[in-house]
């Protein structure tokens, strides 16, 4: 006990060291000092914790409850229906299944392309180019705009811009009605998100690449390694931690895509590009089936949480190893 309180004092908490001193003098259950400290603690932590509880915790937990009800959001009646919503989602809701598969497919494609292109861009701008700084800015710029504006920009590109390029060049790829067909509309969303995400990922890879000691690379070059071997056996292993970070960043953001999905295709044509987040939104606020929407949201949460927990475990493990 004694040694523990000493440690606390060394750790430097003013409050704790003062209360422990006080304790030795008098023994009332709640001393004045303790009360004052509790008051200070509440004053400092209280406001944001209150907002957090009201905005995040309470809705999150009531949401779990609503997932097991037939709440429609309009009438006051909320009936407990047990696992009915989940059974419906599992066995009947074809659109949910389609959205789920589509989102998974999209996530995989977006992760691979965003990271590959982001890494490529980082390699490019860390060469000794004269235009490196400008290019960095250019590649990063799409990232500033939110998904909503990006989707609208590309809506114009796909509808009018591509048609015009197709007319001028005669390349059939540009003559397609990109947003009018399920397959190309899917790739349209991929293009928009890669255009947005690659620059962001590039910034992180640049930071990692700049930490690779130049001497190592030069030594390997002198020993006769070619550029590819240097990249494969020296640079890549050294930036591996950044790769982990970027992979998870893109996984989480791709899986949760909403804004660009809404503004570019709004799920169309015929709901063929409706990703999970948009599907949940439609279920709740368009179909007014809040209970089922919540059940979907709960499943959505469990997947996102699983990804995040995996990320934390992997990066912790790496920290221990290194």
């Amino acid at each position, binding site marked *: 006990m004694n040694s523990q309180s000493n440690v606390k004092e060394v750790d430097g908490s003013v409050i704790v060291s003062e209360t422990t001193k006080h304790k030795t003098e008098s023994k009332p259950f709640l001393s004045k000092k303790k009360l004052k400290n509790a008051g200070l603690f509440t004053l400092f932590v209280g406001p944001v*914790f209150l907002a*957090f509880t009201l*905005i995040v915790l309470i809705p*999150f937990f009531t949401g779990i409850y609503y997932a097991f009800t037939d709440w429609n*959001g309009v009438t006051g009646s909320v009936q407990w229906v047990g696992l009915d919503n989940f059974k419906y989602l599992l066995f009947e809701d074809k659109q949910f299944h389609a959205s789920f598969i589509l989102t998974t497919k999209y996530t995989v494609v977006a992760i691979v392309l965003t990271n590959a292109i982001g890494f490529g861009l980082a390699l490019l701008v860390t060469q*000794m180019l004269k235009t490196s700084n400008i290019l960095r800015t250019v590649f990063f710029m799409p990232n500033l705009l*939110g998904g909503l504006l990006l989707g609208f920009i590309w809506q114009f*590109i796909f509808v009018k811009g591509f048609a015009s390029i197709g007319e001028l060049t005669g390349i059939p790829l540009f003559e397609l009605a990109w947003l009018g067909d399920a397959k190309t509309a899917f790739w349209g969303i991929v293009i928009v998100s890669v255009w947005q995400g690659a620059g962001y990922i590039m910034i992180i890879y640049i930071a990692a690449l700049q930490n690779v000691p130049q001497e190592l690379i030069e030594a390997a070059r002198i020993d006769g390694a070619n550029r590819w071997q240097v990249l494969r056996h020296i640079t890549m292993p050294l930036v591996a931690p950044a790769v982990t970070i970027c992979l998870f960043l893109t996984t989480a953001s791709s899986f949760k895509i909403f804004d660009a999905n809404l*503004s570019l295709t709004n799920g169309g044509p015929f709901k063929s590009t409706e990703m999970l987040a948009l599907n949940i939104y439609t279920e709740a606020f368009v179909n007014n089936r809040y209970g089922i929407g*919540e059940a979907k949201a709960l499943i959505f949460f469990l997947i996102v949480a699983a990804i995040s927990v995996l990320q934390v475990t992997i990066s912790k493990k790496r920290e221990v190893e290194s």
Partner: protein
Amino acid sequence: MGHKYTGRTFIVEILAIALGLVFLVPFYYVVSNSLKPFAEILTNTSALPKVFQFENYVQAFEKLDYLNVFTNSLIITVSSNIVLVIFCSMAAYMLVRTKKKISNVIFMSFVAAMIIPFQSIMIPLIKTAGNFGLLNSMWGLVIMYLGFGSGMTIFLYHGFIKGIPVELEEAAIIDGCSRFGVFWRIVFPLLKPITVTIVILNSLWIWNDFLLPSLVLQDPELRTIPLATFFFFGQYTKQWDLALAALVLGIIPLLIFFFSMQKHIIKGITSGSIK
């Protein structure tokens, strides 16, 4: 590093510039067409405008109610940043300096909640918010941003404050300074670098956010830039002349922000992502 600028570097440079131009093509299309009359957009999409005319902008500016919408976005982003910085820095400071179990529990709950996706909260949130009178009000929205932003903001402050030696504060307390005074006069000024990072990350997020304000602000008078753009596009589908001008009006504030804060933004993103 001392590499020579070789022929190979030159080829790489040409390639990189070409790629940069590809990245800029969408901006070129949007900006150049926003300056054309409607008929010219349809017939001559790829060419530069024959005459630069700003008529579209005048109309879009008015129809968007741009000044009002811009002011709304600004008020919401600035006030959310202020409350986030004030309350989260205070909380993080107290949580670091109070070595008790409850500090850990509270801190972990903030961090754990960061993984909850917005879609899992939004449905009951809108209902609870209605009960507390937070709907259809900018202040309600600001309180929501305080709630949603608290996790990451406290997390970043917490990590930074852990690295600040406590001796400074002890000396001030001996000199008779209150805890409140210690925090605001001594600790808070030391937090400036991380505060800049936090403000940039939160500003980009809040300014661009669409879903939350679309659920909270129903009154057209209260719309933010993304909201107004969304409704404008819905209303003027296929009227590309006005829609594109509106889009550019939405992009301009972000570009100004970016070019005035470029260094901080890049730094903020690098340090914010490697949490």
